[in-house]
Each structure stands twice: as structure tokens, then as C-alpha cells.
């Protein structure tokens, strides 16, 4: 810990108070990049117990904080300067907001008296980030800092988690400015001034009993599981509920790993690129039990035709999600873990497993679909182009089951989500709601920092890689041994796929070219090991080699088939009944 810790009542400056307050929140790592407005915060960091990781771009700091939070469940912390430092982190804030990731972002600000004068590196940070944070603060007095830091962590981590930003004017942290003088105190819950914030966790018991009755009576039910299960640390409870009732489970893109893929009740991922059985099970269900999911358009397809015969039980910590998109029969506001535990009790009171409706026909229908339409791709002959799905399968088979996979956004994300087997919670990290290209490398770095003993693979596309690859310099310098599987097809592949299927193969603005940049040289220049793989037989050995390197990052570039598309697919604007399977599975 910090030497010469301040005692309550000690004269201290705002910069020291901010750093100490972060330590008291249990912060071990800060991802950041300094600037003029944060100089007085960076000085006391030298004496702090917190590790500071110097990023190469502020967007990296934000995504690292997200990756850290995803993997550890603890809030990630980013520290950036005013003006461009703040605007560069708007994307991660928005990403964390829509995916409910707990994170605290501290931004420097010009001195309080200069706000509103268009000072150097001034921007209206609280104004800009109001729409992409759960809450934000502009600190006006040094003495407020310990309290506001405590409030920020409280807001970020309770209720529906999310990003909170604290904008800190330079004068109140600058020891040379009298406005930074304050008396130290350790802020506690009693100091918080949040009269309008009352996150509640217990669900309404009457509603839970009503849900239990619907569940017990349902003949074709599906547990529709979203990221809220992971936020609520409810994976164990979910498993108990599924096994008690024998109800099959679909795990959304944000919930992969919340229920083991290898479990006989697991149907995998639903939605636009979900597998046939998961999509079709929801579509034909008579009851959807939505647990921490929000009926995202990528899950529902055309809303009018989504699960037309299903009653809906919706459990969410956010009251505003209940009925927002799909009308509910029973809506329960509450923490998923607490509500599921109560639900299990109520189902028990109704007779438990023995009282459940006969779902034999439903189960055989589901296994019939699974048999007829498994996830599928056509493996290439030796010497031919490498299939991206094969790369994911090899990665899966040559790594431990608890390997953390961080993905970017696009085709590679869908291959990874579908073809990896997620058997542990908190092993899948991706940008679901915002769909932020470039997410994977910094998120993987953040996850590795939080989980140094675990293996972390980033699965990236060539378009994504070029957006945030510079953070591999951060990883190399900090000796953070993430591994990157770069699926290089020379295209913005998902956009290319849509142009092929829906725009008569008129390819516009999607060709990146597979040869420039030279990814192996680029990786080496950043202090990483670079490996190129062109053919299927090289895949396994390259992964094995990468897994042996633990003192620096590794980039394995896989040259994949640019013509490969993601299937199944529900075309935009269509209902989930129109799911399109792989070409070789059609025509029966």
C-alpha cells in the first residue's frame, strides 16, 4: 500500500485524495494515458499501490477496463486527460453502457474557472458522455472527491451495472493550487448523497410464484438467458433451475458460457447468426423465460413475427426493460440470482420436477432439429483455402476449457461464438450491443491483466486488428502475454457477406487486401512474435507454438477463405422463421 497513508483530518491535496480513494475502492490496476490536465493525478500515482498501464490510445484504456471487468467481475478503471483524451474514450463508454459493464472513468478537465472559455484541451465531457454513461460527475470542490469516488463505484457496480465518469478539474487536484487543499476522510456508504438511486434486488414474490406456475405448466418452454446472468453471478442458480425443470437453455451473445455448451439442455446461441435449433426453439416456444436478456433486435428478428405463440416471463434488474420491446405476461424486476433462487423455491412448492408438464415431444423435436441442422461448414481439402471455422475449432481443441476468448466484431465474432465450446462463465468477452470493431485486442489485454494465470486468446479480424493493434505495444512492454488469432480474409467480411447476399454481389468499400500490411512484420515491430498460417495442416502447430510463448504477445495470422460466409443467418427485416442454413443443408 501507499507509504505514509493519510489519516482522517490530515491536510492533503485533491490529487492525493483521488488516488487514495481509488485504492480504498480496491482498485489494483488503472489503464490510462496522461496529459496536461491529469499531471497532478499522475504524480501521486508514483507512490500508489495501484499498477498503472500506459496505453497507446485512450480507446484502448477504455476497452482494457471493460475486458478487466468482464473477466474479473470487478469494475475496470480508466484515467485519461481532458479534451481529446475524453473524446477518445467515448466509444468504450458507450460500449460499456449498452453491455452493462461496470467501469469507472476519470477524465481530467481544465481548471474549474476556465470551464466554458474554450480553453486548451477543453471539451464538455459531462455533456458529451451524459448519453453513454449510467451517471457522470463534474467535481467542483476537492473535498467532494472521496465521496464522489465512493458514489461512482457504488453506482457502477450495483443495480444494472454500467460506466460512471468523474470529470476532475485540474485546480482541485493540483497541490500548487489552494483549491486543492482539503482534509482527508474515508468515504463510507453513510456519506453518499444519492437520494434518487435505490437499486432493488429481490423480486416480487407474488410475481415469482406466477412465473413458477407458468413454467410448471409450459409444454414447449425455453430459458432465454442473457448477460444479466453473468452480471448477477447467477450461473450456478441457472443450472439448478434448468436441471430442476428440464427446460432447454439458449445463451445469447452476451451470455455465452453462462450455461455450459456441453450440457444436454444447452441449445447454444439464438439470434441472427444463432444455430437453427436455438432460433427455432424460441420461435416455437409456448413460454420464454427471459433471464437478464433484453429482446435485442439481433435476437428477435422482425419483432411482429417473433415467438408468436409464446407467453413471456421477463426477469431483469432494470424495470425499464420489462415490456420495453415485447409485452410480458409476468415481469419481475430483480437480481437474476435472487429471483432464480426464489423461483426454484416456488417451483418446489408447486411439486418441483415431478409436477412439470410432459415435455417429451418438445425434447424429441429439439433433438430432431439438432440432428438435422447442426452448425456446419465445409472443410477444405489440403492445399486449399483455410476455413475460419476450422481455425476456431483447432483453437478450442488445443486450449484449456477455461481459456478466455475476447472477440472483435464481425464474421470472426460469430464463428468464435458458435464454434468455440463455452463451458465456463466469464470466458467469453465481446462487444455485443454496440458492435465495436477493434474491441478484442485491448479487451483481451485487460482480461489478461485481471486474470494473469489464465490463457487469453483474442480472436480478431483484419479490419478490427487495424483499428486497435497498437495496444499490442502496450502488451509487449508490460509483458502481458495475450495471444491473437487474426483471421485475415482481406475483407470487412460481414459487410462483404451482406453485399454478396443482399446487394447482388456489388462489393463497395469492403476490400482491405490480405497482403498489406504485412501482419507478421507489424507484430514483430510491436515486440510480439508473429506467425503466418496459410493452410489447414499448419494450424495446429502454429497454435501449439503460440501457447508455448508466455513472455510476450503472439500474433498468429491465419489466411482464411475470403468467400466464406456465416450461416445460419436470419436476413434483416425477416422473422426468425426465415432462418437460412448453410447452403449444403438446404433443399430438402
Amino acid at each position, binding site marked *: 500500500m501507499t507509504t505514509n497513508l493519510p489519516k482522517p483530518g490530515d491536510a492533503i491535496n485533491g490529487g492525493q485524495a483521488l488516488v487514495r480513494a481509488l485504492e480504498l475502492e480496491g482498485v489494483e490496476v488503472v489503464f490510462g494515458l496522461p496529459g496536461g490536465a491529469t499531471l497532478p493525478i499522475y504524480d501521486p500515482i508514483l507512490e500508489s499501490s495501484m499498477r498503472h498501464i500506459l496505453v497507446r490510445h485512450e480507446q484502448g484504456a477504455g476497452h482494457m477496463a471493460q475486458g478487466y471487468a468482464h473477466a474479473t467481475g470487478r469494475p475496470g478503471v480508466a484515467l485519461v486527460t481532458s479534451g481529446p483524451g475524453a473524446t477518445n474514450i467515448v466509444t468504450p463508454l458507450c460500449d460499456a453502457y449498452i453491455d452493462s459493464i461496470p467501469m469507472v472513468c476519470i477524465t481530467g478537465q481544465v481548471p474549474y474557472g476556465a470551464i466554458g472559455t474554450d480553453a486548451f484541451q477543453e471539451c464538455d465531457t459531462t455533456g458529451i458522455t451524459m448519453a453513454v454513461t449510467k451517471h457522470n460527475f*463534474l467535481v467542483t470542490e476537492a473535498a467532494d472527491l472521496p465521496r464522489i469516488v465512493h458514489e461512482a463505484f457504488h453506482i457502477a457496480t450495483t443495480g444494472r451495472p454500467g460506466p460512471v465518469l468523474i470529470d476532475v478539474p485540474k485546480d482541485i487536484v493540483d497541490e500548487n493550487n489552494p483549491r486543492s487543499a482539503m482534509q482527508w476522510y474515508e468515504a463510507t456508504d453513510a456519506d453518499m448523497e444519492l437520494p434518487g438511486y435505490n437499486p432493488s434486488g429481490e423480486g416480487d414474490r407474488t410475481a415469482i410464484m406466477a412465473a413458477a406456475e407458468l413454467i410448471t405448466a409450459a409444454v414447449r418452454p425455453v430459458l432465454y438467458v442473457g448477460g444479466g446472468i453473468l452480471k448477477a453471478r447467477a450461473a450456478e442458480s441457472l443450472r439448478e433451475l434448468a436441471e430442476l425443470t428440464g427446460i432447454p437453455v439458449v445463451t445469447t451473445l452476451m451470455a455465452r458460457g453462462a450455461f455450459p455448451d456441453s450440457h444436454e439442455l444447452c441449445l447454444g446461441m439464438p439470434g441472427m447468426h444463432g444455430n437453427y435449433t436455438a432460433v427455432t426453439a424460441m420461435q416455437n416456444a409456448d413460454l420464454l423465460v427471459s433471464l437478464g436478456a433484453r429482446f435485442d433486435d439481433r435476437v428477435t428478428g422482425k419483432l411482429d413475427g417473433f415467438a408468436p405463440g409464446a407467453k413471456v416471463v421477463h426477469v431483469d434488474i432494470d424495470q425499464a426493460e420489462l415490456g420495453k420491446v415485447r409485452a410480458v405476461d409476468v415481469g419481475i424486476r430483480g437480481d437474476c440470482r435472487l429471483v432464480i433462487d426464489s423461483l426454484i423455491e416456488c417451483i418446489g412448492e408447486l411439486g418441483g420436477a415431478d409436477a412439470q408438464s410432459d415435455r417429451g415431444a418438445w425434447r424429441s423435436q429439439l433433438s430432431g432439429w439438432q440432428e438435422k441442422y447442426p452448425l456446419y461448414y465445409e472443410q477444405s481439402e489440403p492445399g486449399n483455402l483455410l476455413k475460419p471455422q476450422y481455425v476456431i475449432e483447432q483453437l478450442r481443441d488445443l486450449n484449456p476449457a477455461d481459456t478466455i476468448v475476447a472477440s472483435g466484431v464481425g464474421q470472426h465474432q460469430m464463428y468464435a461464438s458458435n464454434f468455440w465450446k463455452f463451458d465456463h462463465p466469464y470466458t467469453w468477452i465481446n462487444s455485443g450491443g454496440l458492435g465495436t470493431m477493434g474491441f478484442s485486442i485491448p479487451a483481451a489485454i485487460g482480461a489478461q491483466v485481471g486474470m494473469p494465470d489464465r490463457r487469453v486468446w483474442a480472436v480478431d479480424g483484419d479490419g478490427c486488428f487495424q483499428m486497435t493493434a497498437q495496444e499490442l505495444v502496450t502488451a509487449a512492454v508490460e509483458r502481458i502475454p495475450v495471444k491473437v488469432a487474426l483471421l485475415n480474409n482481406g475483407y470487412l467480411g460481414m459487410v462483404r457477406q451482406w453485399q454478396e447476399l443482399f446487394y447482388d454481389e456489388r462489393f463497395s468499400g469492403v476490400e482491405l487486401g490480405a497482403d498489406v500490411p504485412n501482419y507478421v512484420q507489424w507484430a514483430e515491430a510491436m515486440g510480439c512474435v508473429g506467425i503466418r498460417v496459410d493452410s489447414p495442416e499448419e494450424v495446429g502447430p502454429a497454435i501449439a507454438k503460440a501457447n508455448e510463448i508466455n513472455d510476450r504477445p503472439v500474433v498468429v495470422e491465419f489466411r482464411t477463405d475470403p468467400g466464406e460466409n456465416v450461416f445460419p443467418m436470419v436476413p434483416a427485416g425477416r422473422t426468425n422463421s426465415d432462418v437460412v442454413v448453410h447452403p449444403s443443408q438446404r433443399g430438402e
Partner: protein
Amino acid sequence: MPHNKFHTIVTTVENKPGVLARVSGLFSRRGFNIESLAVAPTDDEKFSRITFTVDVESAPLEQVVNQLDKLINVVDIRELDPEASVSRELMLVTVAVGRERRTAILELIEDYRAYVLNENLTHMTLSLAARPAKLDEFEVDLRPYGITELQRTGRVALPRLDETPI
């Protein structure tokens, strides 16, 4: 104008910088239409009151209330059904009044129980606090005389009292 599509929401908010921006920003990004808005301090300096009338055809009322509730600085929300509340709005209006029209205008003022705030030989500034629909009628009646300026405040409302048995 069908009035039942407008519901009044009375919020108590922390009296902090930027709170109005948080509320109005929420309305615009969620696509909720505000018909009118009134902001004023309360008897407790820590809190202000924001009263808005929302078009519940633009978004379900429940969704508006639930999203507002997520704003950290919003402390209390009351939804007032038009049938179960009393509401008033203030209008200030300047009308052209030649000598020959003065009597007619004064009769209107009498009928509506409006006030003359200011006048000269050619113009009069009037005020009227009333139900929003009443203000609409007043405006229609004044228009033939020539309205030169008009401002309305946005409505404020309180719940109707229970009928207490004596």
C-alpha cells in the same frame, strides 16, 4: 385537440447543474415527445421540480416513467392522469387595441378573468393563468384583434384532492 393523449409527469430532481439537460437529453434520445415543460425550485433548496406533459402516443407512459427513474438525480416521479389532477398554465399576451376595440377587449378580460399587466394607447399586455385548454380559447378570441407577442409557461399540476367525508 384530444387532451387524453397528454399526461403530466411531475418529477422532483436534485438541484444540481446539468439535471435539466439529463432529463431533456433522455427525452430526445428515447424519442419521447414533450408537449410542455416547466422547471422551478421547490420549498427545499436541495430539490427542483420539473413538470412535463408528454405525448403518450410517442411512447408508452410506463416506459417514460421507468427511463426517468433510472436518472440518478431524479428523486421522485408522479404521473398525473388528466382526470385526477388539476393543472394550470400562465399566458402573457400583447394585443393591439385601438380606441374603438378597447371595450370589446375589456369584456374578454372580464369573461376570462385575465389581468392587464401593462398598456399604452395602442397595445395591452394581458396575463391569464388557467387550464391549458382555456388558454387556447383565449388565444383564439384575442387573435382577431392582432396578437403581437405571446408566451406560455408550460403547465404545472397537482393531484386532485380526495373527497374527504365530513
